[in-house]
Structures are given as C-alpha cells and as structure tokens.
C-alpha cells in the first residue's frame, strides 16, 4: 500500500513511517506531497498532513492518531508515543527526557540526509531501538 506525507520529515513523520511499516502494513511504500490535495492525486493514504484522519486531531499527534485508528495498545508504543508527542507538540502534556535527545538526533540527521527515503532507513533503526528499550523497561 502507498502512504503519503509531506517531505522533509521530522519526528512525527519518521515515527509514523516506522509505525506503519512495523505494525500496520509491512509492505508499505512511501511518497511525498506538499498538501492534502497533492496527496490525494497520488492515491495513497495520507498521514501527518493538515486535515487528514491520520494527522493532528483532538490533541493527538499523527503517531497517536495511527495508534488510535489501528487500535495498537502495546504499552511500549504508548511510551514511544509520549516521546514523539512531547518532541512534536509543544504542549507540555508529557515529561519525557528522551524527547529532547530524539529531537536533536532527527534534526541533525535531516541536515546530512536530503532524501526522506534514506532518512527513514536510519530512523527505522532508531525507533526499533527505542521500542526495544521501552519493551524492556516494561517487561
């Protein structure tokens, strides 16, 4: 299945891409479009684009919207969601010390990796690691 989001991905979109590939659609392919209209022309499922279902809604960031829609209840994913939320949405709802570090790492990766597909290859590993970490914390 094709999934579409905006280019120049930061935390929420890189985390969503990982979440989709690992927990929703193992064969996911990704494409990039500037807005919802351009995304619709690509005929994929849009995420983290203003106004789409898998976007920011009711105080949720897009990662949380995907958890919500696909009923992913794993506590380690919830922990990861809190980190993504804190780094992405500036609302002080969570206090996750990991967020500031993750923000720095992904901003920095964006400075040295132009291509979002290539970025996903790196960030997928990062989120695999963070997820494994939260699994162990909750074990």
């Amino acid at each position, binding site marked *: 299945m094709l999934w579409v989001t905006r280019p*120049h991905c930061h935390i929420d979109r890189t985390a969503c891409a990982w979440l989709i590939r690992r927990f929703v659609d193992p064969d996911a392919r990704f494409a990039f479009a500037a807005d919802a209209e351009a995304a619709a022309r690509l005929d994929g499922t849009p995420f983290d684009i203003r106004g789409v279902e898998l976007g920011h809604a009711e105080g949720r960031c897009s990662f949380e919207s995907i*958890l919500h829609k696909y009923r992913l209840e794993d506590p380690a994913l919830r922990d990861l969601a809190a980190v993504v939320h804190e780094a992405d949405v500036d609302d002080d709802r969570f206090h996750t010390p990991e967020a500031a570090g993750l923000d720095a790492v992904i901003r920095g990766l964006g400075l040295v990796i132009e291509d979002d597909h290539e970025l996903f290859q790196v960030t997928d590993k990062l989120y695999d690691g963070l997820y494994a970490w939260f699994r162990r914390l909750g074990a």
Partner: protein
Amino acid sequence: MAHAWLLCSYRLPRTPTRLRLAAWRRARRLGAVLLHDAVWVLPADAKTREDFEWLAEEIEERGGSVLLWEASSLGPGQDRTLVERFRADANGRYADIAVAADQLARLARRRRLGQPTLDQGLQRLRLLERSLRLERRRDYFRAPGREAAASAVATALTAFKERTGGTITRGRARAVGD
C-alpha cells in the same frame, strides 16, 4: 559552516488586531527573530521548517498571505550577526528566568512562610521549569545565558525541596487515549 536559514514574511488584514498579535506571538514562541520589522528568521532544519509551515497555514486560514524561503547568506559576516542576534534574544529570556528563580529561592528560604505562599511559590517554580524547557527548545545556538538560568532554577528547586522535606515530585503522564 555556512548556515541555511528559513525566512517567513506575512501580511494579515489590519483588523482585527488580535490576528496580527497571535501570529507575532506564535513566531516569537518558535524563537524566530524578526528582522527589519519585516521578515522572521529561523535556522533551517526539519522541525523549524515544519514550524513555519504550520504558522503559514494558520495565517492563510485567517485571510493572510505568506511567503516562505530557504536561504543562505551571501557573506559569513551576516551569518555571524544573525547568530549573535539569536543568542542575544535568548540571553534576555534566560536572564528573566534566572531573576525569577533567584526570587523564588529567596522566598523558599524565608524564615516565616505560610502554606499558601509556599504553594504559590511551588506553582511559580513549575511554570519556571516549563519556561526553561521552552527556552532550551528554542535556543538554537546555545546562548551563554543558558547555564546561569538552568543553575538558578536548580537552586530554587533545591531550596523548595529543603523547605518541604523533599516532597516535590512529578509523575510520568500517560499517552492520549489512556
């Protein structure tokens, strides 16, 4: 290293003035610097790009028009000037935090201190911690005032802990939907 910058210029209807104020506040909250009363500037990265994109969408929804650019300076001197401007702005805000934290620390060490005043002080301390977190987030060039502000807040926190016997805790909140 040459910096890449994001520039944002917008125009909003003259009235109501609150729209213009809201946009101005939002840009300031991002830590953007306003140049020549015309162009907001942020150092370019995926997050700041996203921040300006959201700002642009909001302005357009409110009937305004926005231009966004990614740009590099033609001379390194200009980069240095801009970086110093970011640091100076951040230093000013860090200094405010440090002053407020010092006041709180003094409050906590007062010989006589009623419970309501103590509670109020704790509340102000929490807000101050939050301000410090926000400041660190938008401190793009590690302004020198950061350390003094962080240590003043830490000192105030210690003073309150000593006063209350170490009972200041903050729980780890759960994600949305729990």
